[in-house]
């Protein structure tokens, strides 16, 4: 321990990675590897994260078929395209919408879609709430339970082929 560069050469107190001893202000000679590691770590963190971000930003969310969903896909960010099979359940909190829930069938299987509060309120504000029979394209996070129940927590929902046209962009 006393041989370590983590100890101040002057007062012999433990100073860790500090270049100057905080107790006596003596210059502590750090091994080259520590200095290089600092620079390498900072570069790797900032540059690596920038490229990772650009890569993620420019990637498309993978489209999966409901029949192909496996438990290993739990938490996966995916897109599902299908038709709403039932009446849309709207859970309200007072006057405001809390969330929407409905089942989507894409021909290979069926899953429950839960639309978050923010997305649901956005859809309601734009008079774009989905209805039974609408063809939708939903992106979100999969949740697969041990009982085989599949749910999609939706982050983005597009009604691509509405059954009842409205005056808005639908």
């Amino acid at each position, binding site marked *: 321990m006393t041989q370590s560069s983590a100890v101040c050469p002057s007062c012999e107190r433990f100073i860790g990675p500090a270049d100057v001893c905080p107790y006596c202000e003596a210059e502590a000679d750090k091994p080259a590897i520590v200095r290089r*590691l600092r620079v390498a770590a900072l570069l790797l963190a*900032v540059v690596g994260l920038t490229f*990772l971000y650009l890569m993620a930003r420019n990637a498309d969310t993978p489209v999966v078929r409901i029949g192909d969903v496996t438990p290993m896909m739990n938490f996966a960010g995916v897109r599902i395209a299908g038709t709403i099979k039932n009446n849309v359940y709207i859970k309200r909190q007072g006057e405001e919408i809390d969330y929407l829930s409905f089942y989507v069938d894409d021909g290979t299987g069926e899953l429950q879609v839960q639309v978050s509060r923010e997305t649901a309120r956005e859809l309601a504000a734009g008079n774009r709430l989905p209805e039974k029979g609408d063809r939708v394209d939903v992106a979100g996070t999969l949740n697969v339970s041990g009982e085989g129940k599949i749910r999609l927590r939706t982050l983005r929902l597009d009604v691509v082929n509405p059954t009842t046209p409205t005056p808005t962009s639908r």
Partner: protein
Amino acid sequence: MTADIPIVAISAVAGAAFSALLACVPGLHIYNILGLLVIGAHALAARGAAVPGEVLVPLTAGMIVGYSMLNTVPSVFLAAPDESALFTVLPGQKYLMMGRGYEATMITSAGGLIGLCLLVPFLGVFGPGFLPAAKAVFQRHMHWILWCVIAFMLMSEWPKGGRFGQGGWGKFLDAWKSTGAGLLTFLLAGFLGFILLYRSPISVTAAFQNLLPAFVGLFTMPWLLLNIASRIEIPRQLLGMSTTLDRIVLAKGVMAGCLGGGFAAFFPGVTGGVGGMLAGHATAVRDDRVFLVSQGASKLVYYVGALLLLFVPGLGTTRGGAAWMLKGLYVPHSRHDFYMALGAVALAGAVSFLLVGPLTRGTIWLLRTCGYRRLSWATLWIILGLVWGITGWMGLLIMAVSTGIGLLPPLLGARRMNCLGVILLPLACNMSGVGPAVARWLGLL
């Protein structure tokens, strides 16, 4: 049910013994191993041979208990203080450098055992009545509690330099070096968390281990790399106890540990380390022995408590990686599952504690025979293989970036805990309802 008891007992003991052995490998986290177990269980289920709950539940519980009890061994013996520790040499490391690593392990494990002895009856008796009520009360307040935890974590990263010399930019920058490193680490980790949560580059077929490469990079790799770069010589270790643990030391340590571990297990995104830090401040833990006892109790209560919450009837809460992974395989249905899990935890706790002594001696022998660096190299290759095997090349890329972030705190004198920004920041934003807006602003939605 009676016929199940031997199966449950054997599974719990096997899980505890298996993970106790693995826990002694530095940097190998039980969630990584559980990931492999999940893959195996899904493969069996796909072939029509699903693993029954009477095996799966006690096996997982045993593995979690074994890991939380025995993980103390590498955290004491394979984390010697070097250039990576500034001012804060943890008591376990102090004991190690005084040749008393065995004692530190035993004191920590004693805390873990007492923590477990309190957790099991508490959950068994009060869990089904008290916890759902507590959840109903806290549910609407979770988001601001989490923001308070984050604020405290960042604000308690005190400036370590800038105390001497003439005033000016030099002194100002010196004072902000470690604090700034902590903030930078938290923000970079948080940004990484947003990328992984909203547009993960990992293949959808390995999504259940989405955060594995990030956690390995943020916590395990820096530890191993610094071990390899380290020039520390560990003194010869004594195999015995030279201090006594009186009731006051145990009571103080267990109280702090159970508070921290319990808080971390109940509130989402908060880990045992954060809970321990909060409880340490709240109860003003100063004595090294109290600190070690509290660490043992906190770790056990956090890991095991989080898993057991999944089984508490009427609670419907999933906390911690183990519970999330198990939930993908098995959903608890009744009190039968709850009491089975509690029984398995108790049995695994007893077995794990009995293994602490022999495995600590084994680790000391291994360190003497193989050496600190060689062990770290071996683990490094195992970890690389594991990350590549589960998440592929993309996982290795994420791990490399995370390693850069994870190296910042130890090299610049900040807390490693700041790396938890990877889950804390996106989770706090999501719970406050602004997560999707932030993700959209970042172009990730």
